[in-house]
């Protein structure tokens, strides 16, 4: 088991390397560079040249790549072209906000979605099943920015009960319980928007998985033994039906850092998705690369976690 974990962690190195090279190439291929973004459209060509020199953009591509790899190898992600602050600090300052938003919504939608899906799977084809399934599809296909705007209209403008934007009030408390309550209040609408959309996905997933398991012969056997329906569902069916849910959850967990650019934009949430989006528009290579490295590490760890959970859920899966 320990050998397996070590191996998986070591696999990260080539994965990250490929990610760096590919993305470096992509950023390099995109038209325009940071000098134009920094100097403005009426800039002096001499100033453009100075910026390119200062940021090393005047070097050949391979040299830039090599320098970057050496720098990352020594544990330094560099300095943002725009803000002139360390990339690691810039990224870390945005991670809590994104984790809070996407993490909360992920937990709620997985737990609630799986339970509801399992519940309606007891009687496939019933009126309850078809109406909840239809609703799930509708929620799943709703554009999240539109839903976000509608929630703002209803709760922030019409009813005026919830704040529409940001992570905290301008005049709110800066620490203690007051701060927690303030942030929690600001979280409600974005989490609701994000959860509503992914909730539908888990309902559909768990419904079809549970329905399939329920038709298997071992369930018929437990039924014949006379276990109560609830125990059969929760104890015997759901556990086996969880495997596809875990797969999708693993995939989404990997994208937890980037999965909410639209929601973050609608609600002015100070998260990582917006940082990456702005960095791409401004060709802020150090931030883009740093974020991609962070993302590839998250994806790798999420898939490792998925495999571990698989092994725990399904005794036939052995990690070697």
């Amino acid at each position, binding site marked *: 088991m320990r050998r397996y974990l070590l191996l998986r962690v070591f696999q990260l190195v080539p994965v990250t390397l490929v990610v760096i090279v590919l993305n470096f190439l992509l950023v390099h291929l995109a038209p*325009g560079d940071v000098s134009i973004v*920094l100097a403005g459209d009426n800039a*002096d060509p001499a100033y453009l040249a100075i910026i390119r020199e200062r940021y090393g953009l005047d070097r050949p591509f391979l040299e830039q790549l090599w320098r970057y790899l050496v720098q990352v190898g020594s544990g330094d992600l560099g300095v943002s072209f725009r803000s*002139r602050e360390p990339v690691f600090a810039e990224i870390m300052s*945005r991670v809590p906000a994104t984790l809070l938003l996407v993490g909360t919504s992920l937990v709620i939608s997985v737990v609630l979605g799986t339970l509801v899906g399992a519940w309606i799977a007891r009687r496939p084809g019933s009126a309850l099943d078809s109406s909840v399934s239809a609703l799930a599809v509708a929620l799943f296909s709703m554009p999240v920015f539109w839903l976000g705007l509608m929630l703002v209209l209803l709760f922030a403008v019409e009813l005026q009960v919830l704040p529409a934007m940001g992570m905290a009030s301008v005049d709110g408390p800066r620490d203690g319980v007051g701060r927690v309550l303030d942030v929690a209040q600001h979280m409600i609408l974005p989490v609701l928007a994000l959860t509503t959309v992914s909730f539908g996905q888990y309902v559909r997933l768990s419904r079809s998985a549970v329905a399939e398991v329920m038709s298997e012969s071992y369930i018929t056997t437990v039924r014949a033994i006379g276990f109560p329906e609830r125990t059969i569902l929760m104890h015997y069916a759901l556990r086996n039906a969880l495997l596809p849910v875990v797969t999708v959850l693993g995939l989404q967990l990997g994208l937890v850092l980037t999965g909410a650019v639209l929601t973050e934009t609608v609600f*002015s949430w100070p998260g990582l998705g*917006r940082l990456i989006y702005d960095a791409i528009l401004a060709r802020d290579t150090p931030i883009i690369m740093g974020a991609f490295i962070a993302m590839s590490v998250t994806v790798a760890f999420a898939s490792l976690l998925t495999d571990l959970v698989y092994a725990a859920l399904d005794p036939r899966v052995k990690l070697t």
Partner: protein
Amino acid sequence: MTTLTKTLSLAFAGLMLGLATAAAQQPATLVVPQLGEPKTLSPNFASDSLGFAPTSNVYSHLVAIDWGVNKGTGAYGDLAESWTTSEDGKTVTFKLNKAAKWHDGKPVTGHDVKFTFDTIIRKKYPALVVLKNVKEITVPDDNTVVLQLIDPEVGFVPMLAQVSTWTAKIYPKHLWEGQDGFDTGPLVNAPIGSGPFKFTRWEKGGLVELEANKDYFRGAPKVDRLVFRQVTDVNVARAEFDSGRLQFLNYEYAPPLAEIPALQRDPKVKVVFTPTHFSRDIQINLKKAPLDKQQVRQAIAHAIDREAMNKLAFSGFWKPAIHASVESQGDLINRDAKFPAFDKAKAEKLLDEAGLPRGAGGWRFDVSVTNPNFPDCKAMMEVLVQQLRQVGINAKLEQFDQATWFRRQAEKQFDISCYFTRYGPDPDAFREHFMTGGGRNNMSYTNPELDALAQKAATLNNKDERRKIYHRIQEIIVTDLPYINLFNEQKTTLIRAGWSGFNTEPEAFDKAVTWFGYYSVVPPGR
């Protein structure tokens, strides 16, 4: 009056006084929405459209302009109390305001101005665009700065004021002299300036917060706290404004003009239109056949119906422009020099005469129309395409992202494009747009007479002589037609009733300190 009533009334009076002061002491916070995050809070080394607003309120400038420039009022002193230009136009002497202090309490002196401008010139920072004409800066005493120019330039001070809106803010020498440039060191993102507001905090991804500088040399601002909050979605900002939680929506968040009549009926909202000294026009590529023929450009001018365009693109709220200038320029406008008026029959006739008869499908020739990524330009060009098609010009709309559009424009890869020609703060702007090789002359336009005139006007101190030259230049332009003026650009802002003194309102002109200044804002009840 008994002692008791006296005591009671005194107590009552005291209570009322106490309540009144308590009410007056309630701090006034102004939250200004911004579409995104500033790059840094050091305005002098990068062009940073989202940093302009916070930094313009923290730092001071030597001279400034604000939207008052649209009334033709030009530059006014910020740190400079007054200035004089020598007879030969090559020496400008600024007298500084002695009361100006940095936020750390030290006085602002001419050495700070010299240090800032010298660094900009040495590092070739963006403000070099105006400071490149500076030969030497001297500081005879703490309150005097002398700029020696290489060539006489009448428009130097107004141009410096315009550029100061974005960059060329004055930095404290005693805190920056150890740094290699304006992009390193502890003050890049924690600025110390001499402006009306002091920097307090920057919540990344959230907001930049400033507090009133009680010792500001023009007097403390009436707003106690100024917060630039990131509101990335235009619709959410509008919802927050409608529900009263935002007091001000600047033009970046302007609602569609079709909604204006309803807003104008709302007593809780002030709708402010602010004309600028820019126009919305079209540049024509003179290197592309058949646009290289003057007759064809004349036909295009005749094909354009500004009134119809105004209705369709702007719900009739903009002001059509028929001269090679905009209203802010006052008597500098040559009102006899007009662009060809709307006349479809004449347009068709001219095109026939130019050897471009209607051919297959009724088309005379193909032309592509493009625009920078401004909503107003896009709306105008959609109408223009239809108007050109009506006289048999097969026009098609092509759109690009902003960076690509700028590049294609500079590389002259366009036929007709929407553009934003500038006429102030000094009419010397004509050189940049219409002189051979001018920085914004994307049309490849060249006219030796205009070149000579514009060059001469830039050095003339005599106002009447200058005006005559600029009148002649406008005559040349409306004849040669390298561009066709269509509208005076106009900004729309929304203000909550009770608040006043915002930079786009006439009462704040020449008081707001830059286009992004909030110094003159007055909260309700102040």
